[in-house]
């Protein structure tokens, strides 16, 4: 079963995730319990809930989950939370304003994780357009936010964005 030269896909029914008392992500994989597990997205931009690499605390891969939607309810909830913790990428729900003050771009944003501000030295290195209408914003300190589809934001946000896209 464990062919080291092939990708090891985990069977959804043989995987269970939960959260330990200390708030740490843990689980049972193929019958073996782990008190700390780490999740990695193999394609953080393209597939956010698919192809999730599950690794132990040392970073060795235990296997890959093809799609977390196939997991049971509790596992799904916990892995979703863990992904959100590890890939801290708040989703922008509203763009309050984009201002250029001397040589810094200041963004006021509303996200699904609360309001935040971002400061960028320039746009050409801090805005990425991975595909379609998706935008990834990175600020001076490395904080990142995502606009899943800027076309579907409200009109105020779109107006703010027209001159920066």
């Amino acid at each position: 079963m464990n062919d080291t030269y092939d990708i090891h896909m985990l069977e959804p029914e043989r995987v269970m995730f939960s959260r330990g008392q200390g708030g740490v992500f843990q689980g049972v994989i193929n019958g073996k319990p782990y008190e700390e597990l780490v999740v990695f997205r193999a394609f953080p931009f393209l597939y956010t809930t698919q192809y999730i690499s599950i690794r132990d605390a040392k970073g060795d891969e235990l296997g890959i989950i093809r799609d977390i939607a196939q997991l049971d309810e509790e596992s799904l909830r916990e892995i979703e939370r863990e992904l959100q913790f590890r890939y801290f990428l708040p989703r922008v729900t509203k763009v309050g304003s984009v201002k250029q003050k001397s040589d810094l771009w200041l963004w006021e944003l509303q996200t699904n994780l609360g309001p935040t501000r971002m400061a960028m030295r320039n746009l050409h290195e801090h805005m990425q357009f991975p595909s379609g209408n998706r935008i990834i914003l990175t600020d001076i300190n490395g904080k990142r936010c995502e606009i899943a589809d800027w076309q579907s934001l409200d009109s105020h946000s779109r107006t703010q964005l027209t001159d920066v896209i």
Partner: protein
Amino acid sequence: MSILEKLPDKIRAQMSDEPLFSAKTDLRNNGHFGEQWITFTEREILLWETDGLQYFNLKVEDLKEARAVNGVGGGTLLVDTKKGPVVVARYTAALSSVFGFAAKLLTAIAKDEERPMASEKEFPRYCPTCENPLSEGSQVCPICKNNGKVIARMLKYAKPYKLQMIAAGFLLIFTTLVELIPPYLTKVMIDDVLQPKNMGSTLLMVVIGLGATALVMSVMQTVRGLIGVWVGSKLMGDLRKDIYSSLMRLSLAFFDRRQTSQFIGRVNSDSEAMRQFMTDGVIWVSGESLRVIAIFIIMFGLDWKLTLFALLPMPFMVVVSMKLWPKIGRRWYQQWRSIFRLNVLVGDSLQGVRVVKAFGQEATEMSRYAEANREVVRHNIRIEGLWQGMFPLFSFIAGLGTLLIWYFGGQSVLREELQLGTLMALIAYLTMLFGPLQWVSQMINWASNALSAADRVFEIMDTPSEVPDVRDPVPIGVIEGHVRFDKVTYGYEKHHPVIKDINLQVKAGEMIGLVGHSGAGKSTFINMICRFYDTDEGSISIDGVDLRRISQSDLRKQIGVVLQETFLFDGTIAENIAYSKPDATPEDIMRAAKIANAHDFIVRLPDGYDTRVGERGHRLSGGEKQRVSIARAIIHDPRILILDEATASVDTETERQIQEAITRLVKGRTTFAIAHRLSTLRNADRLVVLERGKIVEVGTHEELLAKEGAYHKLVEAQQELSKIKGVEG
């Protein structure tokens, strides 16, 4: 101790001990934005709400270790307790250095080791006035710095050409004044000659006057134009030189994160935008505003009431310009970004043109280009369209003023309150106002383009080098070659260390072989010796002098490197070999080539040492390129020689020859060699085995084999491989 920000009194009041550490998180425990406070003392770790409510506590005696686990864009402070791991706090990437330190301090407390001292680097700094982040190493807050300074800084480049600019200015003033004469002469002509039908000498005088002014004007325009071109080209030259030298001054880390071909276009286009503003822009603005003022003074002198009509549309135009100003700036930037993306794309696919062809992906590249190109076209139309629309609008509005003057002026003429010539002169002056008006919109365009270009240029110039030279470097002269690594830790991205806690003492003249799996950090190790990057922790010294205190040019003079990626410059083979020693004699060049076992193949080339190798040396085979770069590394007789996979692309026989030559050469020189083919390192005095950034074994080949550790495994794996292949390992 390490108190970063002032702990709210409500929290402080509840603590009995003085906190060892306190910090504000920027995420709540559930991963949402928000603030919580973490404090710890020698006895317990506490987490607080900002209003002083205690959220969580943990006794230090339960603690085994603390870790800052960094995810992407944020991280978690985890502690390992006897009952398993526990999440203490979460934070965004902005605070990862603070929590990295917190984890170290906690671990030290738990294990009762010496408490680490916080260094300046660990704490992000914020501007005291506006609370925005300060970039590393800079003291000025970019927000509180205003645009006026950018312009002032830009104008500094014009300073050396003050005299010429002033001369051009005087010529301009003079032309402007001369230009104002013809309409006045027309007035004289109509009122004093044509209407009274007075055929005197006046007509001839007026015509001669008109001719003379035309002549003077064209001569002065030519002279001014020439000065403009001269100053402009010089200025642009200065700018380009400055941009380029600031690029060269930047450290490798800057280029690691960026696509380098982008800078080719930037150096030229940004300096052109700035030049345009400074020469044409500044001269025109001052000239044209002068003209506007002069015209108004004359017009007021002719008939002040009618002139007021001409002024009517002015406020409107000022308001429109102010409104459009930021928009135009942004559109210029957008346009620039689309060109930037196009350039990056072109640079990329042309550099990799061999790969493109090898996989037959020309069509894909073309369609990628077409897409980016469409964007550029779209933005071009947007920005050009905007300002093409602006000028007609402005002239139309200004034209309304003319209409009013025609109407009311015409009435006055009919009532014989005004002379016809005066009216004609007024109209003529008003038309002359359109010139400056056009320049208003043009100027807005230029200025915003130049400002955004200047921003980008100054950003490059202001980026501090990550490996700065100290003010008074220690003169090292010719070094002996002792190299010492002292607890060196480094990561290309902070808090993701690639080499960890490296301790190594290398005697002068020793040959060290570095081995380890791919990605173990071998190249990074030697990058540190060359000081391409500075250590995050610990220090490296050569002959007992810290690398950071040696000037980089002195250091590189003592080091010869063959990098893993061989790169040859566009030029002849001889030029490439003599790169680090431009005064090398042909004999030196041949001697170096001979040692690198390159002499024979070079001489056999039709053009010998004068063969042009073209960009990146594409005309040579992989192994030939490597040999040329070995020659380049040894020609200046370095005291420390670094060979990163220097002979990976040559056959074993050639390698043996190079090795023998190098062995002779390395006598008395400190050498670091990296090789996957372990036989390459058989002459090494000591082998250093790296695994995931840590030194796991050090010793001679025999010692390490006897130890049956990591090195033994590597050797065995390789022997197995060569058995299969049936070649010597």
